[in-house]
């Protein structure tokens, strides 16, 4: 593996989307399924789209893709840790000190646990026009197992994944990173309000807890005024 951390990464940025789509368990399958709203939005705006799946979701292949394609928007779906994001079958795709510099001048959204604690702030250190939005807590969502084969009917998962989609969707629509970050947070507040004012189910408090976790833990680093 070539260490790209100290190389000077120079390529022309383009208005495109790189999105990772791991599907090796039900959680990552949901993230991938709900990403259709993001890719549909990108298609409407005629953005170039690179969906990164299965065999390409390892650090070597993913680094090559990032090096070859200077697409500005990068959406990372998958499990994460304080310094890494993982791909298919939890292979590393981004690691602090290995290939994080490839993200530096991009708009990055990591729908991953904890990557906002160290990876996010460090990969944007010294960045002029890049921005990282992610979570400094575990990204949590609930799902209804009755709908795992038809996630589009899963109203429980929608509570969590639609607000998170709003980050890249807002960026694609031309909003700045900070506007997109705030739009998603406002949407989470609306979801929580709706849960409180709507029909009280016995499980409602669990959804509020998880939404509050994601709301509080959503962080932004880099140039918050960046746009596509």
């Amino acid at each position, binding site marked *: 593996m070539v260490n790209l951390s100290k190389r000077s990464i120079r390529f022309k940025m383009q208005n495109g989307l790189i999105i990772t789509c791991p599907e090796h368990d039900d959680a990552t399958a949901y993230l991938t399924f709900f990403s259709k709203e993001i890719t549909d939005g990108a298609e409407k705006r005629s953005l170039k789209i690179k969906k990164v799946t299965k065999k390409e979701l390892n650090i070597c292949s993913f680094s090559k893709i990032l090096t070859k394609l200077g697409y500005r928007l990068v959406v990372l779906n998958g499990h994460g840790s304080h310094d890494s994001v993982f791909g298919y079958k939890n292979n590393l795709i981004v690691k602090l000190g290995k290939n994080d510099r490839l993200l530096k001048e991009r708009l990055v959204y990591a729908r991953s646990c904890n990557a906002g604690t160290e990876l996010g702030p460090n990969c944007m250190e010294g960045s002029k026009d890049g921005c990282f939005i992610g979570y400094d807590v575990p990204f949590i969502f609930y*799902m209804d197992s009755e709908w795992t084969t038809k996630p589009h009917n899963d109203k429980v998962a929608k509570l969590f994944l639609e607000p998170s989609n709003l980050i890249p969707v807002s960026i694609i629509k031309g909003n700045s990173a900070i506007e997109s970050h705030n739009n998603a947070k406002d949407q989470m507040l609306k979801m929580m309000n709706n849960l409180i004012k709507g029909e009280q189910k016995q499980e409602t408090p669990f959804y509020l807890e998880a939404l*509050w976790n994601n709301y509080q833990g959503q962080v932004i680093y880099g140039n918050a005024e960046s746009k596509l």
Partner: protein
Amino acid sequence: MKEESEINDEIKKLVIARIDARMPPNIKISIGGGGSLSKEEMIEHVRKGDEKGKQIIKMHMNFIKAVTSGEFIKEINKV
């Protein structure tokens, strides 16, 4: 240390009782790697006090703190 351990055990019992009483069997949680967890798996992680169990407890406690401090109401009234 003993006191802290006892408190943790009390919190664990509380969280487990809550999940057991209120969580419908069809609802699963995605938290961290390794796919989603069923109600029984959630309870088991909390009981063992492993990383996922701690995360579940932390989520629960953070929410209670936010509600009792008024922070939660303050935030949701923004929209």
